């Protein structure tokens, strides 16, 4: 698949997003200036550390952050030219119901256990497109067929628990795709599934994307899945995007030491049992993000100014951005411990 050039007209642009939570330990920032964009028809994968803010970012886009404890302190979220953060939550929810859709890791929680799956999808057409009951049901069955549920007309009458994990995830995807969204956000859609089901679901998403020109944001820890479907990759660390660029560039010539460390952590298929080389040290606590570059306590190439000056995300090559003072040296492969 040829990656489209850096999309001229971004569908979604997130700029300098700062989100904080009021917790039992006080207020802390989960997002500390997140910026990225997704073009129409493009697939962006978000990689990054557990706890770096990937889910919080996409929940902010979908207006799904808990209202009592989360605050958007700063930043803009722009969808197709409209600024979502300026709109009332209700309008964002409406947009997110028709134009954007989201698939979560745990499909069980996304479905109502006591409503037949066909009914759950039909409801969307009834409410959002005011179709007749009969037409809504017909479209629901067609939607189930589209995601490859065998005997969809019959299975539409079944309840969620009567489906296997993989089939249930397909139902959730059918639901997300029902209103033909222009942007699909998938937060670890296949983490709980075995590789054969995962491959089916990723193939399905790819087909739908090609057929409908749908854009996608995919969050996953699996570098193989990312390599399989993404056009571009954004890498998050400690509440910020530290690197973004075309898939192969980020994989083969990363410009941020954190990304290099991630790539070097993957077990080599031809050397089973060999000691792995993780990034040393621990991720920072969100309560005490280090001054300067947030990665400096763990960075093998940190210098004095990294402790005091916070690097901004900047262009290091066409379509390739990184937040590191020494990105050019990192790209050139200068001494990075643990790198391949």
């Amino acid at each position: 698949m040829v990656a489209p050039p850096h999309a001229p007209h971004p569908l979604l642009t997130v700029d300098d997003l700062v989100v904080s939570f009021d917790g039992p330990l006080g207020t802390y920032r989960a997002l500390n200036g997140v910026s990225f964009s997704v073009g129409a028809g493009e697939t962006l994968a978000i990689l990054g550390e557990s706890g770096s803010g990937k889910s919080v970012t996409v929940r902010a886009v979908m207006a799904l952050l808990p209202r009592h404890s989360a605050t958007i302190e700063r930043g803009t979220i722009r969808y197709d030219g409209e600024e979502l953060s300026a709109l009332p939550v209700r309008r964002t929810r409406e947009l997110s119901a028709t134009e954007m859709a989201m698939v979560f890791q745990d499909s069980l929680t996304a479905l109502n256990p006591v409503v037949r799956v066909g009914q759950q999808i039909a409801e969307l057409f009834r409410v959002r497109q005011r179709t007749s009951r009969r037409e809504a049901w017909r479209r629901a069955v067609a939607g189930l067929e589209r995601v490859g549920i065998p005997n969809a007309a019959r299975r539409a009458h079944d309840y969620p628990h009567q489906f296997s994990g993989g089939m249930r995830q397909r139902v959730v995807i059918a639901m997300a795709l029902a209103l033909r969204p222009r942007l699909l956000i998938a937060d670890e859609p296949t983490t709980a599934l075995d590789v054969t089901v995962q491959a089916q679901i990723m193939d399905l998403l790819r087909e739908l994307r090609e057929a409908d020109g749908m854009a996608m944001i995919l969050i996953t820890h699996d570098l193989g899945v990312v390599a399989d479907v993404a056009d571009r990759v954004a890498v998050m660390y400690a509440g910020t995007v530290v690197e973004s660029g075309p898939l192969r560039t980020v994989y083969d010539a990363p410009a941020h030491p954190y990304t290099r460390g991630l790539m070097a952590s993957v077990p080599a298929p031809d050397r089973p049992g060999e000691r792995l080389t993780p990034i040393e040290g621990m991720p920072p606590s969100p309560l005490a993000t280090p001054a300067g570059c947030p990665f400096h306590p763990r960075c093998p190439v940190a210098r004095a100014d990294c402790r005091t000056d916070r690097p901004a995300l900047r262009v290091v090559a066409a379509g390739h951005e990184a937040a590191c003072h020494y990105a050019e040296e990192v790209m050139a492969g200068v001494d990075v411990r643990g790198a391949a």
Partner: protein
Amino acid sequence: MSTSEARLEVRQLRVSYPARGGLLRRAAEVHAVERLSLTVTTGRTLGLVGESGCGKSTLARAIVGLRRPTGGEIWYAGERVDDADAARRRRLTTQIQMVYQDPYSSLNPRKKVSFIVTEGWRVHRGQVPRDQWTDRTAELLARVGLAAELADRYPHQLSGGQRQRVGIARALAMSPRILVCDEPVSALDVSVQAQTLNLLADLRADLGLGYLFIAHDLSVVRHISDDLAVMYLGRIVETGPAATVYGAPAHPYTRALISAAPVPRPWAAPPAERILLTGEVPSPASPPSGCRFRTRCGLAQPRCAEVEPELRPVAGREVACHYAESSLAGGGPPVTAVTR
């Protein structure tokens, strides 16, 4: 710590759940694990892979005594575990501990790390004298690479990787010889995953632990396993040395599974053929007659519907397939194959 070899043997194990919706058919049962045998030896790792819902977690729960088997036997170090009287069983089960998939939900959110780690000592009185708890806890935390001050934290104050280490420390507190690890790294980013895998490898080398390691990510399983077992619909369909099974899978299901695994850098690997499985996973409530895989197998012959294949030695491993030899040779009518 004793380092003499000990074996955990599962023989012809059956684990059942009451079938749902069977109001009239009383006592109907789903055999989630069916006549399954395997051996875990201290100092070695047996990797267990298989389709979502094929019974891996059910098997794990039965082994650690959380679910009563409905048939077969479980032996540890020459003693039968599953029908032992309560006292003997308790003594034996401390030696077999479990590490859970989800570091978020498997720890009690209201208890501090120090309480979570010592939980087993409260249940099994006399395991560790009360006055040694503080010292032993510090030792355990150091053993899994956690700073001593983390003992006073609650789970939500820890990162995903730290929580997973707490889960491992809790299991180690009982001085087990065997760890049953149910997807211990699935929710972690690749760097934290690498740290955790290195830790497990160290513990195996230093304490002579034996692992039953369940995972969906084949590159992880391959990395840590000496032996591999592949499960489909409650039964083992192929098992043997990891390099043999992974290098040249013989069962058609194993072939499909391995071919579907995403690789981190597909552009750097030779083009691979991906075997797509079609059809839905049959329900364990009504498995197909004969070979359980036949409804999705491209090599199926009339005989496959009549006679259930049992595990038999083929080319250095054991396979449950009538046509394993031709499958191994890549022969027979191909399963729907596509080149990616």
